[in-house]
């Protein structure tokens, strides 16, 4: 019997998802026993031509982690899509955009400006910025195109399944691989994790007050959190009420609030909006000024509520990042956004 062939690939990600596969520990041996890994650039020496040589659909599954930001990433996932029976968006970045997705708060131009010209560690040079094509005596060199925005995997190719988490917990990875090998995968489009909020499996659920109210919000460094009590009840912004479970509450066990990496449950369209709603409702006061003051205590609401999901959100990106404002002004409309975002000046 031939073993199902699988591929692993990474896009805009940190490498933590690859680490998660290694974190399967001895279970990884069972995985290798059950499937034939034919492409895994981070760990094994295969070439793109090896993938191109496969028949369309020959791969049982491709596990793709990371968000999509460059032409190279788009080409690779399109290739893997053609060659795969199933594509699994592996981890928060591939599913929702993840941490790299927060780059959607800045324009492409302001990112390149900052990284190549303004970053403090940059020496005053000749203002060189990498070009997509450069002619050298040996021929023409090409770099991938850096896209205007960060996209989720399913904004670029058709995706069959999603494995949530930053990175996905080993238990969920093992379950997904087992389901794949046994041909017991659920309905297309499923998120391969429990579909209830984290509070349902939180070890501190018993200490969550019946009528939970917050008088002020704290950031984790501002207080020493009690290791037994519900973190929301202590004024920490814990996204447990609005985030999918399946992570065994590892952050809570480390006395840190949930930051939402497991994404929303299936009933939620926009994770950040739902998380914002859950947290806002906890405010003790009814007075408008006090409520506004409490809202100001959250120094970075976008980064708090959309930490892993900005590209997948309803708004997708900042309405007018620096570069886009020039275009808006050129059209004669009122410039959008009074304050500048991102590193670059306007």
């Amino acid at each position, binding site marked *: 019997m031939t073993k199902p062939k699988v591929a692993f690939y990474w896009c805009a990600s940190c490498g933590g998802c690859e680490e998660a596969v290694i974190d399967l520990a001895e279970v990884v041996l069972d995985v290798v026993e059950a499937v034939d890994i034919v492409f895994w650039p981070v760990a094994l020496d295969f070439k793109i031509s090896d993938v191109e040589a496969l028949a369309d659909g020959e791969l049982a599954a491709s596990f793709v982690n990371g968000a999509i930001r460059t032409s190279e990433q788009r080409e690779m996932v*399109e290739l893997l*899509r053609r060659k795969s029976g199933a594509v699994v968006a592996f981890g928060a970045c591939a599913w929702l955009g993840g941490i790299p997705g927060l780059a959607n*708060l800045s324009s492409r131009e302001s990112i390149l400006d900052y990284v190549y010209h303004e970053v403090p560690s940059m020496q005053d040079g000749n203002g060189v910025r990498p070009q997509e094509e450069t002619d050298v005596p040996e021929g023409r060199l090409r770099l991938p195109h850096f896209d205007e*925005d960060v*996209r*989720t995997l*399913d*904004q*670029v*190719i*058709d*995706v069959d399944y999603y494995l949530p988490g930053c990175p996905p917990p080993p238990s969920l990875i093992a379950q997904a691989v087992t389901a794949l090998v046994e041909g017991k995968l659920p309905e297309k489009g499923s998120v391969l994790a429990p579909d209830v909020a984290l509070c349902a499996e939180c070890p501190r659920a018993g200490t969550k007050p019946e009528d939970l109210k917050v008088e002020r919000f704290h950031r984790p460094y501002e207080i020493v959190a009690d290791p037994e009590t519900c973190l929301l009840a202590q004024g920490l912004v814990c996204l447990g009420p609005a985030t999918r479970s399946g992570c065994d509450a590892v952050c809570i066990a480390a006395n840190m609030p949930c930051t939402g990496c497991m994404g929303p449950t299936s009933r*939620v*369209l*926009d994770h*950040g*909006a*739902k998380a*914002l*709603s859950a*947290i*806002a*409702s906890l*405010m003790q006061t*009814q007075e*408008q000024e006090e*409520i*506004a003051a*409490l*809202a*100001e205590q*959250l120094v*970075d*609401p*976008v980064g708090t*509520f959309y930490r892993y999901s900005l*590209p997948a*959100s*309803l*708004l*997708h*990106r*900042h*309405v*007018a*990042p620096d570069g886009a404002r020039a275009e*808006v002004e050129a*059209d*004669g*409309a*009122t410039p*959008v*956004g*009074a*304050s500048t*975002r991102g590193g670059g000046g306007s």
Partner: protein
Amino acid sequence: MPETFEPTIVAFFCNWCTYIAADLAGTSRTKYAPNTRVIRVMCSGRVDPQFVLGAFARGADGVLIGGCHPGDCHYQQGNYNALRRFELLRRMLRDMGIEEERVRLEWISAAEGHKVQAVCNEMTEQVRALGPLRLVTPPRVEADGDVGTPEPAAELAGRVTS
């Protein structure tokens, strides 16, 4: 563009007060800007922040929420929850580049038809002065692999409704 631009404002009105006030404005033959598209909800507390973002994503240039005055909520606490969510949402939208004038929460009782008129007119003018929202929505990928190019949400919404 500001001369010809007609903003679309989605208004979520509470069943027990603001919606009746809008009704009163109508039966009193009170004229106000036709840019407001009213959606009746049972309570301003029912307005999930997803509704507001969804309205923007589908082409709205502004979103208005109308609820009962503090202390008058038919469900006791609903309008206070609306206020809590609204203040935090407004704070967040600021960081997303959406101007404060594009989202508004007003307490309008069933007797205040004139306030519906004043608020709708004022907000229409403010949003008209700001111009279109110009949100760019992410593309949709079809099962056959076709990727649409991103297009302004307003155009998308126009195509859906036409």
